[in-house]
């Protein structure tokens, strides 16, 4: 039997949560920004090993500039969180520490992956400039546009959940 795992994507609006999911599930990307309202739920089966796979049920939440504004029912029964921010917009990662602490405090045993998206828009020097903020917190620098690290993010997380 295939296990189901609920993964919730959180973060400010316009950071590329929906684009990351589209890249992962359909392997496509669109420059057009369409705001997500409420929640979209998608599903993809990921092969863990030859005889084992897992169904990722991915909740793509409407972006919020404050995690506390998120409807609590959306987070019920989550097996993992992916917190996404936009590397090119400091407003989306200025409160990264506080946002992550909220998750830690309310969902003690639920793993959180922190993702700096839109890597294609910034340089390595730019990322180094924010090293103090990113260094210990960020797990992946991704680009939904180029697909960089998107597959790795979801497949590694899937393995961790089994």
């Amino acid at each position, binding site marked *: 039997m295939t296990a189901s795992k*609920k993964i919730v994507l959180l973060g400010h609006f*316009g950071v590329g949560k929906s684009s990351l999911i589209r890249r992962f599930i359909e392997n496509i990307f669109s420059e057009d920004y369409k*705001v997500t*309202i*409420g929640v979209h*739920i*998608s*599903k993809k089966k990921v092969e863990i090993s030859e005889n084992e796979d897992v169904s990722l*049920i991915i909740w793509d939440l409407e972006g919020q500039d404050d995690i506390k504004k998120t409807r609590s029912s959306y987070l019920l*029964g989550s097996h993992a969180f992916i917190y996404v921010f936009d590397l090119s917009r400091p407003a989306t990662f200025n409160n990264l520490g506080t946002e992550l602490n909220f998750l830690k405090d309310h969902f003690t045993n639920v793993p959180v992956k922190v993702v700096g998206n839109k890597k294609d828009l910034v340089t390595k020097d730019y990322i180094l400039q924010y090293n103090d903020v990113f260094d210990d917190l960020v797990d992946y620098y991704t680009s939904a546009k180029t697909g960089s690290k998107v597959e790795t993010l979801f497949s590694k997380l899937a393995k961790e959940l089994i």
Partner: protein
Amino acid sequence: MLDNYQKKYLKNNFQLLLVDNEGSILEVGNPFIKVGNKLQDIHPFFESVQDLLLIKNQQHSFSCVNLDFDYDNFIVDIIIHTVKKNETVVIIENLTKHYNNYQITAQRRNETVINYEVLELKNKYLLEKETFKNNFIANFSHQLRNPITASAIFSKLLLDTNLSSEQKNYLDIILSANKDLKERINDILDVAKIESGKLILSESVFNFKDLLNELITGYSIIASKKGLDFKTELAFNLPDYIRGDAYRLKQILGNILSNAFTYTTKGSVHFSASLNYIRAKKVNLHFEISDTGIGIDQSQQEEIFERFTKVNEQNNRNIGLGLSIVKHLVEHMNGNISIESQLDKGSKFICNLSFKLANEDDIKYKSSLKELRPKFDTKKNLLLIEDSELIQLSVLKILSSDGNFFLNIVSNGEDVIASVENQEVDIILISNTIQRYAAEEIAKSIRAISKETRKIPILALSSEVFRDDIKRYKSFGIKDVISKPFNDVSFLDKIYKHVK
């Protein structure tokens, strides 16, 4: 009657399901979503909330859930109510229309916020770039000032020696090139000051008619060299003395005149100054400078006030910084400037500027200054703290020509205190380029020696003449700044102003 309406609307908007713990569908009411045997097979949403069915007497609400199917898409609110063991009611309310309207609003709001953030970042980036550029220009120009000052002063001194006429001609060319270079550097610094918002207008009483006559005399020489007719017209009712920034007024008029003479090869240049009005102790002046030069096509007239604009490739009208500075200065002085021009026929610049009128006391004081440059009973002692030999020699030459001063030179910061303690000093000049020591630190140390040394006027010899620099200097007891590059007149004016 109401029953019929209720049936119609409730049927369309609500779907109710009764399911057991395993998610098997026991009953379905008013379906708008297609269902099979299992709740979790309807949509991944239900698969991920399956565990909630196991806890009885609980109610969970999920608003704005997007349910996308092959046959249709819905945005719904869902309530899952575990009524009793093994029986759960799922209520789905179709709010697609309502949420789609909300989506339009959210889309607009988010796009506005994102665009604003992006613009703010771009602006920040541009400002950082601009600040870097302005600082670079200021520092670089500063480094050029010592050699330019020395070159100008020594060329001038050389001119007074026994030279052949050929040598004098060469020296004239050197002096002219030096003057040109100095003006270019000042232009670049002015632009840097203007763009970084550090330009300050000084305010003092000056003889307006003298200023105009100086300009006219200077450009009459240029006109005769170029074989141009220079017509001037000064209204009879112009005020003698006004209060404002004389240096900047001269720069505005000089830059426009210089532009007119540069682009006129035959015909004339006309300069007029008249009075618009006097109101509330303020005078509004009107200036016109016209020429019979190459002119500018109407489509390009706005561009000539932009820096480094090459307006007309054909006749090679290459505008540098002069008119850009004029435009900024005029705006800074709350005035206005416009241009009327026809290609191949000539141009006319029209400028209106306001100044405060000088009062009686101001005029008396200013007139008395003309008699100044006092004769001292004994020579005064000037201590120069400077490690550039070029500047040391330049100051020495200026002071020896003047004859009223003894010059003592200290070339390094370590010797300053001993030098001040062991000799009589009437005025101190500290260079801002002395190695390892800031002029402010040296001034602070001198003032700390004794009560007497606190009274000695200290001036800085510096190219840092921005508002913040002057303020900083003053906070350390530096009374005034002699700006580099200097000449004999500007140098001595400042010295006589402070020495007693």
